[in-house]
């Protein structure tokens, strides 16, 4: 057992050398490594946001708003359809999560069902499971004279999924328009988005970008009624009251505009928006697509001299007077802009509107200097930890201690290599996990050495003691390490962010320590024995 075949030596040596090569890029800066020839290893350990600095945001998509919007649209569709089918009804409206109305004559139930079926889309073909993604978008129930429509489970799921996909896309465009920031934008669960932006120092700026849906619409201003009249319930049909975006000192809107409900042109028809200057004031210039340009041209031609309101998320940005027909399909938005806010609005308009508002559920931002401090402290703690453990092991086990420390060093190199190759993210708890594995990694060696001591004390010769020592210890090592791996796996499963990183480092450390203790330590002990041939073990 103590004889080592040359191929074994080569294999183990090769593996250690391989790990060393893979770990080397971590000693250099990112830019240095990128200049290396392509055959050289280039993966480095990813530093987590808590080590390199950056922002982590967990966002929730407000699906309720989307469902409510859907139901409101359904109500107006039903109104039109029932009228043209000459069905008498009353009390049509949204109640909670359903649309309900009463039939004037319960005998109309059959006609109504047909009418509603027309308005009730079927699902799209499901490419994975076959059949349709869902049967109907709404569940329709007619009991006596009461008709109830509720979104079906499948319809709701499909809606949520498409809203989330759209939101992800818009978030990506808003945060990373130029594609240079390397953000992580992931779907989480049914209605959440995880956003991680490395290097971001100002989470408030991020939140400003994500805090608005940025739905842009153009409406005509109605001057035939005052705001007070409309508030009191008067004024012509089809108008609404919208506050201005400018606020007075105490935070209330400066004015309120009476505008027509009808959307003349909407932001969906925009193809570009850029910040620019008009009469030395920052403005946002925009360009419509063909449809938008035609609509915009028609309105401005018909309404020269009148006011039209530019509305963003239910706030009037400005309401300029139409001086002349604008048929070229481009125009400018004036308003109370700074250079910065004009920039921001242009970006939002280019990225498109979010289908639903986003709420921040969780935010973690770490400044880059704190991250750098943590890395430095972790490195020093690691070095001191290694030195302390090494000193103790050599004092306690002599030459065998030196062997254990060699194994430990290679263990560390292997952890670094594995983390680099896996592209794992090293977090602050991850560094703690690494330092901790150091202390625990020697455990396997301790088990082996203590066992050898025991066997020697029982009167076995050096070879017999070493052999029996390894044999007896391996089973214990596996049993005890598997249990720790179980704990690490559960940590990974249920932990979040940094804790997951800790679980990964801990698991890699355990596996590496089993390899170095069982394979590498044995090799080193055998080599040492073959060279020295001692009569008694110095252990």
């Amino acid at each position, binding site marked *: 057992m103590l004889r080592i075949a040359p191929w074994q030596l080569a294999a183990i040596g090769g593996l250690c050398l391989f790990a060393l090569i893979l770990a080397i890029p971590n000693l250099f800066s990112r830019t240095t490594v990128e200049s290396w020839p392509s055959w050289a290893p280039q993966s480095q350990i990813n530093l987590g946001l808590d080590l390199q600095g950056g922002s982590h945001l967990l966002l929730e998509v407000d699906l309720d708003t989307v469902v409510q919007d859907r139901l409101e649209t359904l109500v107006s569709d039903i109104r039109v359809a029932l009228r043209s089918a000459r069905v008498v009804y009353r009390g049509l409206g949204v109640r909670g999560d359903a649309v309900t109305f009463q039939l004037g004559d319960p005998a109309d139930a059959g006609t109504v069902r047909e009418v509603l079926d027309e308005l009730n889309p079927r699902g799209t073909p499901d490419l994975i499971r076959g059949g349709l993604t869902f049967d109907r978008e709404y569940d329709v129930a007619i009991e006596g004279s009461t008709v109830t429509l509720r979104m079906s489970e499948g319809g709701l799921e499909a809606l949520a999924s498409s809203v989330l996909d759209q939101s992800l896309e818009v978030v990506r465009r808003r945060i990373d328009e130029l594609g240079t920031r390397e953000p992580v934008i992931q779907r989480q669960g049914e209605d959440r988005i995880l956003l991680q932006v490395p290097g971001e120092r100002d989470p408030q700026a991020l939140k400003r970008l994500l805090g608005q849906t940025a739905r842009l619409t153009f409406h005509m201003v109605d001057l035939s009624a005052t705001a007070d009249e409309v508030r009191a319930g008067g004024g012509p049909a089809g108008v609404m009251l919208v506050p201005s975006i400018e606020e007075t000192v105490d935070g209330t809107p400066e004015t309120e505009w009476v505008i027509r409900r009808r959307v003349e042109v909407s932001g969906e028809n925009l193809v570009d928006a850029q910040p620019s200057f008009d009469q030395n004031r920052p403005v946002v210039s925009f360009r419509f697509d063909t449809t938008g340009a035609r609509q915009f041209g028609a309105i401005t031609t018909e309404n020269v001299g009148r006011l039209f309101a530019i509305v963003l998320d239910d706030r009037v940005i400005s309401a300029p007077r139409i001086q002349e027909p604008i048929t070229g399909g481009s125009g400018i938005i004036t308003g109370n802009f700074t250079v910065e806010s004009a920039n921001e609005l242009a970006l939002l308009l280019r990225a498109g509107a979010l289908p639903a508002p986003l709420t921040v559920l969780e935010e973690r931002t770490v400044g880059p200097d704190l991250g750098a401090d943590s890395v430095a402290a972790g490195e020093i703690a690691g070095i001191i930890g290694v030195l302390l453990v090494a000193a103790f092991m050599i004092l*306690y086990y002599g030459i065998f201690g030196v062997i254990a420390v060699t194994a430990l060093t290679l263990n560390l190199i292997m952890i670094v290599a594995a983390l680099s190759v896996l592209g794992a993210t090293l977090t602050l708890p991850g560094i703690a996990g690494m330092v901790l594995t150091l202390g625990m990694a020697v455990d396997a060696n301790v088990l082996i050495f203590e066992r050898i001591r025991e066997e020697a004390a029982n009167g076995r010769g050096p070879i017999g003691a070493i052999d029996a020592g390894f044999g007896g210890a391996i089973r214990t090592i596996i049993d005890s390490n598997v249990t720790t791996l179980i704990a690490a796996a559960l*940590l990974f499963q249920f932990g979040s962010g940094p*804790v997951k990183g800790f679980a990964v480092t801990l698991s890699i450390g355990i596996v590496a320590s089993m390899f170095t203790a069982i394979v590498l330590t044995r090799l080193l002990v055998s080599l040492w024995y073959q060279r020295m041939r001692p009569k008694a073990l110095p252990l």
Partner: protein
Amino acid sequence: MPALRFLKSTPKVPFMAWRRPAAIVSAVLVVMSLALAFTAGLNLGIDFRGGTLMEVRTPEPADLGTLRSELGGLGLGEVALQEFGAPTDVLIRIERQSAEDSNAEALAVEAVKARLIEIYGDEVSFRRTEFVGPKVSGELFTAGLMALGFALVAILVYVWFRFEWQFGVCAVIALFHDVVLTIGLFSLTRLEFNLATIAALLTIVGYSLNDTVVIFDRIRENLRRYKKLPMTELIDRSLNETLARTLVTGVTTLLALVALFIIAGGAIRGFTVAMIWGVIVGTYSSLFVAAPVLLALNLRREDETPTKTAEAGP
């Protein structure tokens, strides 16, 4: 020859003779920890309670008293301040803001930042800002507890599978003991209990179990080797034979942890404190909880149970 050795030869510590006093000590500590946790509760961090946390570095040593009254006057509810590692580093915790306005937390952060810039000028640096909403904090807490619960069950099953059922039960009792005592320490010291603490608890579970399994392994081996030895002596012998390893591993782990504790303070201080305590308690529980309970559960040799005879090892 090595310069240092804890134990010249296999020691003869009468662990089993101390099992009654040890049981009383353990029981008292467990009851006290539980009582503390239920009365005084835990100092839950924002991970589990929700709210906002900011780490700020001021250009000159911060006067916490003045800051407290300045920030307390902003109308943000409870604002807790704490020195964090250095006199110029301050940790600010802001109570969870009203649930109605989802933007309230952001506004609170802005207000605190503005006030601090007014006091210290532009040189004040905001090193870290964390906000956890009520929805997420509840989920994180549940997930943490689930991880702990599942870990204990999985370990019970694994140890049961590898040994006899008595070993599994003993291991889990010892782990429960360790976890409860660690929670007790957090309740007593008012150290912040957060996600990293859960990670520490699970690592303690892993470490303590490691220790326990090594001892159980030896007990199982000795059960086969010494067929006539009374159970008390057999367990004593196994504990003594593995004692050197138990101590050496404990010391090396503690050395690494102490380095971490002294240098990498701040954000992972709670984690290292928990781990240091856990290594000590875990070592104690392997020797004085797991093994004696094994005796109490009436563990018998494999060949004394008729159904197991066929499987008895060489």
